[in-house]
Every structure is written in structure tokens, then in C-alpha cells.
């Protein structure tokens, strides 16, 4: 279907690698990566807290970088590799950040947690956080209304220092 200006708003074929598996999908232009994950692919670990990039609950890794999936159009990410919380760790071996969140009780209700963990994984890969203050600042895009911040910072710091000593 072409709209009045002559641009097609029909569903577009795209390919995404999601948690390591390549998927061919047809998406409407308006479909956000978040809605695609949750509504179509039923990967509901990625949460919708605000749908406007203001809370970080929908944070995923896009080509290894942390991004808010609510403000990303799926069609614009054709070819991208997406890692969601479901793609981090396994039951036998949690990702070190997941394990640290358990150990430090870095969550309460759990709703912001997938976004916090994906964000923390992105932060560790970026390599700009060396101190607790830097972790606090660079994790401030992930709101936690339960107020688990002190434990979140500790959990991330513990992984950071493990990485340092390895």
C-alpha cells in the first residue's frame, strides 16, 4: 500500500540476528524493536516501562551496544544483531552480571532488571566506567523505582573488579 506521498508503508522484509539466531521477518515501518520483540517474537524479558526512552527498561544490545529498543524502528535495523536478556547466560551458567545481581540482591520487583543487566553488560564493554561514581553516572539511564541502586552499583563494580583481576 502506498501512502499519499508515494512512499510505501507496507511491511518490509528484514533480517535480524536475535540472540544468535537469524530471523527473517516482515515488519511495518512503525514497528519498534521493542514491540517486535515483545508482541511478535514473544521475547517479553525486555520490558516496556515508558515507551519513550526515559526509563531504560527496554535496554537491549544492538550490535553489542546498549540501546533503548522503544526508540528504535525495527526496519531501520535490518541486518543488526540483537541480544536481549534471554540471550545472556544459560540456566547452567548465568552471565557474570546476572550472577552478581543475584548475589548482591540488585533488584526487587525485577521489572527494570533485564534492562539494568543489558545496560550493565553494555557498560562493561564500553570500558568507560572505572569507579563507582562512573558506574552510577553511566547507569543513570536505567531507572529503578524500587531503589536498588546501591546494590546495582555494587554488583557491577564486583564484575568490573573481577575483570580487572583476570
Amino acid at each position, binding site marked *: 500500500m502506498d501512502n499519499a506521498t508515494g512512499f510505501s508503508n507496507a511491511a518490509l522484509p528484514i533480517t535480524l540476528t536475535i540472540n544468535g539466531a537469524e530471523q527473517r521477518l516482515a515488519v511495518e515501518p512503525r514497528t519498534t524493536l521493542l514491540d517486535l520483540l515483545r508482541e511478535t517474537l514473544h521475547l517479553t524479558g525486555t520490558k516496556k516501562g515508558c515507551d519513550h526512552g*526515559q526509563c531504560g527498561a527496554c535496554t537491549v544490545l544492538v550490535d553489542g551496544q546498549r540501546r533503548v529498543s522503544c526508540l528504535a524502528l525495527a526496519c531501520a535495523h535490518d541486518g543488526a544483531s540483537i541480544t536481549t536478556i534471554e540471550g545472556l547466560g544459560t540456566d547452567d551458567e548465568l552471565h557474570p552480571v546476572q550472577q552478581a545481581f543475584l548475589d548482591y540482591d540488585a533488584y*526487587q520487583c525485577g521489572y527494570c532488571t533485564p534492562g539494568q543487566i543489558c545496560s550493565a553488560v553494555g557498560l562493561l564493554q564500553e570500558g568507560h566506567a572505572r569507579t563507582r561514581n562512573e558506574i552510577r553516572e553511566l547507569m543513570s539511564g536505567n531507572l529503578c523505582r524500587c531503589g536498588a541502586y546501591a546494590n546495582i552499583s555494587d554488583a557491577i563494580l564486583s564484575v568490573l573488579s573481577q575483570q580487572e583481576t583476570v
Partner: protein
Amino acid sequence: MANANNISDLASAAPPASIPRRIEGRDKVRGRARYAGDITSQEMGGVLDVAVAVTSTQASGQVLAIDDAAALKMPGVRLVVSHENAPRLHKIMSLTGAEIGDLLPLQDAKIHYAGQCLALVVADTLEHARAAAAAVEVRYSAPDPQAAFTLAEDGGRTKDVAKVGGGDPGQVKIGEARPAYEKADFQVDMTFLTAPHHHNAMEPGAVVAAWDEDGGLTVQLPTQFSYGEAVILGEAFGFGLKDRLPRLISQVLGGFDFNHKVRVIATLAGGSFGGKTSNVHLLLAPLAAKLTGRPVKLVLTRAQTFSLMPYRGETQQRIRLGADQNGQLQAIIQDAVLAKGTAGQFVEPTSEATVKAYSSPNILVHQQAAALDLNAPGWMRGPGACLGQFALESAMDMLAEKTGLDPLDLRLRNHADVEPDTGKEWSSKSLIQCYQAGAARIGWADRDPRVASMREGGRLIGYGMATAIYPVKQMPAVACVILGADGQAVVQTATQEIGQGMITALTQIAAETLGLELAAVRLEWGDSALPYGGMTVGSMTTLSAGAAIQEAAQQVRQTLLKWVVQDPASPLHGQPADGLRVAQGRLVAPNGASEAVAAAMARHPDGSINEEAITGRTFGHSPYGRSAFGAQFVKVSVDPDTLHIQVERLVGAYAGGRVINPVLVRSQLLGAMVWGLGQALLEESSLDPRTGRWMNTNLAEALVPTNADIANIEAIIIDEDDTRGHPLGVKGLGEIGIVGTSAAIANAIYHATGQRLTSLPMRLDKLLAARLNA
């Protein structure tokens, strides 16, 4: 400097692994924890329609027409539900207080507040429903020019209230406070204001409703009271008597139950903080599903949560304190004006802590409410107490200065040795230890107490403190404990997990009482088909559901012990039953003989031992005054020029009875302190005073604390065992952390700057104005 910091930047050691972590923790960190909004069509038998709400853009008047013609033609749209076609609902007579008790949705054309739900668009997908909702046109009559939205313009709406909160008295009169105040040697008279603010749990309101072929209704949603929601649904949709009757009556008082047609499933809430009970959307999804005959999911947008979910309303409190030469309080007078909605009976219980905080022969509380043309305010973490203590504890700080006493000394002199409003002995009270521990930790004695005297790195430094108090409550609860042939136990109670760690703590209580390993106990919760578990409110879940679990588990244990000593096949045969211990899944006799519970149960003739217990029938009435206490200490720094305020340290010391799980309790206390910081410095929902519309309906402008806002924060837990007050010795610690925080921060800002801020949130523009006016 950055390098020097690295030493302090070692992660704190993780708490010992011996302390159980959240039983749902792995699911939460793996993204497998399920919330209502996560429910997919797969789980609903392949069919799950999506509803999107259309809300009113004006606060009063009538809906003249809802033009849904365009929307109905859009792809995937099944239905538009409005007052024109919605099934009629029956009035809800029980369990009201929330807006839903007075204002049933989509029943008529009258508009009560901006953001009211006027229609639901139901479609096959979220995108279709969202697009069609945007295409629904609503025509309105002119708004009512008399509509009022703030306490400043109440226009004769203010009336005395008999009850506040959950039934606390609106008016309290002990002694003769006014004359005592008039003749007091020292007087403080100050008015405090607090702005409305919303819970903004990270999970927005969400509900899935499905009607079955037999006319039964199953609703899944986050809530703090699954039974209450079931009763509301039973009443509103005109089910038979048994679904309309509060099952707490049938179960708790009658001790029986029967099959119901309404079932409410509330597995996990993505934060609630008081805000997710009896929300209007509880009825919206079932209304739509009834019309379509298909399951419907409704998730509110963040903006819609501001008008379709409750919030903490605006308050105004005048506090007068009178004290004698020694600083001994002679009069506490609280005059409060509290916002309520025109629908909804909830009034913030600002007096709850005020009447219990200090020893004073004369206490007078006068509370009024003004019904405003807004959606109804409701319960929010630390209800009443945190606002009351903001005012009272700020006023105490002012009194300390007037009397020349150290703020801590003033509080010690006025320590309430008995519960002030009842004269009852406290079941236990460790407030003095809280003061001492908190003061020592923050270095209270080392500060320079003179106002505006301290500097660090060019910044003004201030220390402040406040008392925290939150009354202990217990509600009726029922629990069923089943010890199976495999030696594993199932515990059933319809309580709710809202992030506080309740399901872990309750599992621990059961395991400890039964003498089983934690892994041998499985809790079933969050389902109104289970025995009545009470409300998850007011820090009372451990007391209520925990007590029922403990009692049922004790009965199971007793039954097991009695049977095993009579069982000839047991190595414990012939031992005295009351001499046996059960620990780590083994029964052990004083003479060393032992048997695994699983081995014994494998022989049990019934295959299981089932016991049910009902506790709290007296609604927790006690011969003792019962309360959790705490002392909040704060260090702030303020930039002398820009007046930028930063909380450097938050130290809270709390005594709240026995602690079941110190990891979870610490988290809860820290979280509540973060709430207190947000309330103190950031949180405000902005109303356009002309239209009554919430304007900053997003998380970029309705600010809550970020990670960067939380610097050094510590919760000290004081050992206390309140077995005199409760069989488990617990008090409840969900609210206490927020109660004193805003006052302590206000007092610290005063100490740093000499400016007394009396209105929340205390943002730098208020400090700037105070400084310029000084």
C-alpha cells in the same frame, strides 16, 4: 583524585551466601519472570486482543459524542467500548475507598476528571489498537468553570473528616493542647506543603481478562490484594452472592470456602508501592472482553498511569509545638488539609505517626479534606506517616534551635515511653538504640552544630536527623500447609509479591517452622483461588500471612511428630513427641535417634499431612502499642552560589522486630530511603491549574531518583525480637525507611544554609527564593 578513589571503589562484599536469595531471582535476572503485560496470545489459547484506552482531555462537563466511525474501519479493530455500549456495572458496596468504589468506568457521559477513561479500542494487535485509539474523536460540552484542582482554590470544599487512611481517627484530642500551646515557654508554628506525586512503578498498570464458557471470569494483573479485586469484580459484574461476599468473611470468620466464578491471578507486580490496588482498569479489560467474547489485554501508557492510577495528593499541614523550659513537649497541634478526589474516599492519614511520635500531655489533630476535580489520590509508600513526619520532624528541628538543645537531645527528652495516644505499653521499642547507632555512624557528635558553619571543598555542609515511626498492623490471613509423602511441603496463601521479597520470606518461615530445607518448601501465592492471604499493604504481610503460615506449619509439625513416635516402623517410635527436633529435613530425638522427614512421610497412611490456619481474626488488636521505629540521619552539601543540593550520605537505623531475611530487609530499607530522597528533592506531578490536567506525565519530567542521585546510603538494622507483639517477633519494615527521610534532608539543608524549606519537593529554586528573601 580519581585514582585515590579507587580504593573505596572496591565493591562491598556480597552478603553471605548462607542467607537465602529471592526464590524468583533466577527468573528475574534471566528475563523469565512474568508480569501481566507479558502475557501473550500463546498462553491464552492463541487468542488475545489488545485494548488501548482513550482518555478525557478535559476535567469536567459531559461527553457529547464519541465518533468511532473512522476507528472502526481501521485494520484489525474489533470494537470500541464506551458508555454508549458498555455493559452496565453494579455498584460496589464493599472494600471501597479507592475511586473504583464510587466511580464505575464507562457507565455514563459525565466527566469527573481529566484523563478519565472514555473509551477502549480493542484490536488484534497493539499497533492496530493504538492507531485506532488515536482516530477516535470525542466531543465535549463546555467544562465546568467551578472545577477546582488545588488546595489553594478549594472554594468551600474543605470539610472535617471523621476517618483517614484505613480508619484512623481524623480528629484526635488528648488533653487541652491549645491552652497548653499558648502558655508554653517555647513555641513553633509552621505550615508545611507537599506536592502531589505519582508512584511511577516501572511496570505500568496492566490487566488481562478472560471470560470462560460457564460465565466465569479470570483476571490477571498486578495488585496488592487479589481477593479484594475478586470481590470488586464479583460485585461489579453482578455475580452471585458468594462472589460478591468478601471471601475474607467466608474464610476468615466462617472458616469455609466454596467455588467462585471470579479468579484473580497476581503473580508478580513490577513495583506497586501502594498504587496498584483497585485501579479502574481492573474493570475495563473485563468490560471489553465481555463484549468481544475474547480475552483482552490492556496495558496503560505511562501518561495514562497519571490519571488512571492513584498518586499521593497535595497536603498542607500547620504544626504547632509548645515546650517547657526543659524542652519537654506540652502541646502538639496538627491542622491538616488534604486533597481527595470527588470520587474515592481515601484521605491521607497524616496524623498516623504524629499522635505516636512523642510524649506530650496534650495532642490535638484536626484533619480536613478537600474534594478536588482530579482522579482520586490513594495509598503510597509510607502513607500519611512520611508526610506527617516531614512536618513534625521539621518543626522539632525548629524547636531544638529555639530551646538551644541538640536535635537528638530534644528527641531523647521527649521519648514516648508508652504509646502516646493510647497509653499502652510498647510491645518493644528500640528507638534509642536507633538514635545511637545512626548518630555514631554518621558522626553526629563531630559536626559543628551551628547553622551554616560547616564547609567542605567550598560547599556548605549540613547534617540533619529525624525520627521514623510506622505503626505495626496485622490483618486476618489463612494459610494451608501440605507436607507430602516425599517430605516436601507446599504452602498456599493468596499473598502478593510486589518486589518486597515476600515469597522468599514466607517460604523461609515455613521451612524454618517445619524444619525443612528451603528447597523442600514450595510456596503458592498470588491467586484468589488459594486461601485468603490478606492485603500486601502497610508493611503487614509478614505479620499477617507469615503468622498464618507459621501456625499451619506448627500444626503440621505437631501432627507429624505425634504420628511418627507412634509409628512402629520409625526409629523414633516411643520417643516423647515434644522432645523431638526437626531440622534440615530430619527428625531427631534427644537420644540421637533420627529419621528423615521424607522417609517418615513415605510411610504416612494418608500420603500427606494437611493443616490450615487462620490468624489475625482480631485484626491485630493487641494489649500493646506496636510500631517500628527508626532514626534517619543525613549529610547534605549545598553549593553556596548555585544552591545545588546534594545528599552526601543517608544513614538509617531501624528496629522493626525480628528480621527473617536481612538481605531482603536491607534492600527494602534502602529502597524506601531512595523514595524518601525522591520525595524530598525531586518528585512532583505538575498540574495545569487552569485545566486540571497532569502535564508532566512522563519519566523525563516527573523526576524520580537515578543511580547518580544515590551516593552513600546505609541501613543499619537493630536487633529486636517482638515476640510480645507477634508470634513471629516481626514488625514489618516496608515503609519505615521513607518516613523520616524528607525531614532529615530538610533539617540538613537548614543546618547547611540557615534556610528552612517547608514545601516538598525541596528543589533548588525554593532554596534560592528562601535565600533571596532572607
